């Protein structure tokens, strides 16, 4: 039925973009596996560089995991729009009659599912290796569960602004890393609070507030940024 394909609803366009991105991600595993391996390797380097002493490691564990998350998120963000920009399908997205920010949101969600979620799932294992007190595991996972999508959403603005540039690894870092300061602060504070038996609800609520704000504003901004850089 050609008519049915020619006039998809916005919701089906959203789902199609999501499916397409997930499919591409599974066909091109390097883009997912390498940032994840980077995350694991960076964390395993810290005990070698600092000390194998469990007490010292436990003290820095939350910070190390969060910094590694930030860096690997930044590396994986690089592939968010690049392939689509190179093969021209990004222009198709821009030309589509559906609201661009909605499709950008779909791309963000797909990207988070393949790059953010593995990090969240693997975090207790790495936390154990860094001797984080076991009562903090749940808080660490919760903060990462709320924090990683926020990082993806904020990062996508910078990626969209620099999508046309040839070598942009470093400029992406310079723009996005300062932006992720609030997430880093509340994420590590929550984990540290839970390690000393303090309530963590306040930090999680703040992280959720930042997520809510970026979920509603970042796709709009990224869409505007894409229209600027692809024109």
């Amino acid at each position, binding site marked *: 039925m050609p008519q049915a394909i020619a006039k998809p609803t916005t919701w089906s366009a959203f789902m199609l973009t999501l499916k397409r991105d997930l499919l591409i991600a599974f066909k091109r595993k390097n883009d997912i596996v390498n940032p994840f391996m980077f995350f694991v390797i960076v964390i395993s380097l810290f005990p070698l560089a600092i000390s194998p002493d469990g007490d010292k490691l436990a003290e820095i564990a939350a910070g190390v995991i969060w910094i590694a998350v930030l860096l690997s998120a930044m590396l994986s963000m690089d592939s968010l729009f690049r392939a689509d920009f190179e093969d021209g399908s990004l222009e198709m997205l821009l030309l589509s009659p559906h609201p661009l920010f909605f499709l950008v949101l779909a791309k963000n969600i797909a990207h988070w599912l393949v790059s953010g979620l593995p990090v969240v799932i693997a975090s207790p294992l790495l936390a154990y290796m860094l001797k984080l007190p076991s009562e903090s595991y749940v808080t660490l996972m919760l903060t990462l569960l709320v924090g990683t999508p926020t990082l993806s959403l904020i990062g996508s*603005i*910078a990626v969209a*602004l*620099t999508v*046309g*540039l040839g070598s*942009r690894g470093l*400029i992406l870092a*310079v*723009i996005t*890393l*300062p*932006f992720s*300061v*609030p997430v880093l*602060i*509340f994420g590590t*504070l929550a984990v540290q609070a839970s390690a000393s038996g303090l309530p963590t609800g306040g930090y999680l609520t703040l992280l959720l507030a*930042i997520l809510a704000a970026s979920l509603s504003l970042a796709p709009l*901004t990224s869409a*505007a*940024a894409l229209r*600027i*850089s692809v*024109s």
Partner: protein
Amino acid sequence: MWVWFAKLGSPKWFYELSTKWLPWLVVATVVVIGTATVWALLFLPPDYQQGYTSRILVVHVAVAGTSLAFFPLMAVAGTITLVWKMKLADMVAKNAAALGAWFSFITLATGSIWGSVSWGTWWEWSDSRLVSMLFQFFLLLGVVSLRSALEESDKAAKACALLSIVGCINVVVIKYSVEWWNTLHQPASPVSIESGSANGPEFWIATALMILGVYLFLSLSLILSTRNEILMRERRSLWVQELMSTEK
């Protein structure tokens, strides 16, 4: 009113008007900054605790206060660029980013010099103002590097405008989160710039004069660099070529 608004967007009009104003602005800047500097560095009485090092605070406070104006300025200019596509706003925004980075750097440097004597350390993570100023510096450098990476000037203008607006919001968020991080780590930080307020009124008058002077300096450098930018971007237009041939 709209005629005036449209005129403001014309680089030629701005160039001609600023040519008339420039000598007055230069005189005012030199007089105010000169008076404030001489007063602050030679005549201000030494603080009973900090000694003569309190004099650098006159410069520090003025530059720090002024450096906070850059992100709002760039966000407003960015909005004008995105909404009305006014060329002049982008020329101002372009130079404001680099100038703002310099102001933040001078704030950090003068603060460190003062801190090295008064606090006994060049850098202190437990003061939230230091940390948020550092990140404002990084964010401004981000805008500068985005501008230099995007060569095409129309695209760079819009991209930097968007980044300035997002950055302006972010500076505020960072400021509050760093403050919270700080108060939770080190409650009631004993070191604070407010401790200098025990100084007499001379100190604050000199500082107020210096703030005025630094704002004058800011407008002067923005106007001068915008004039350069106008000549660069409009070099193919008739009025710039006429101007250049008469000046030769």
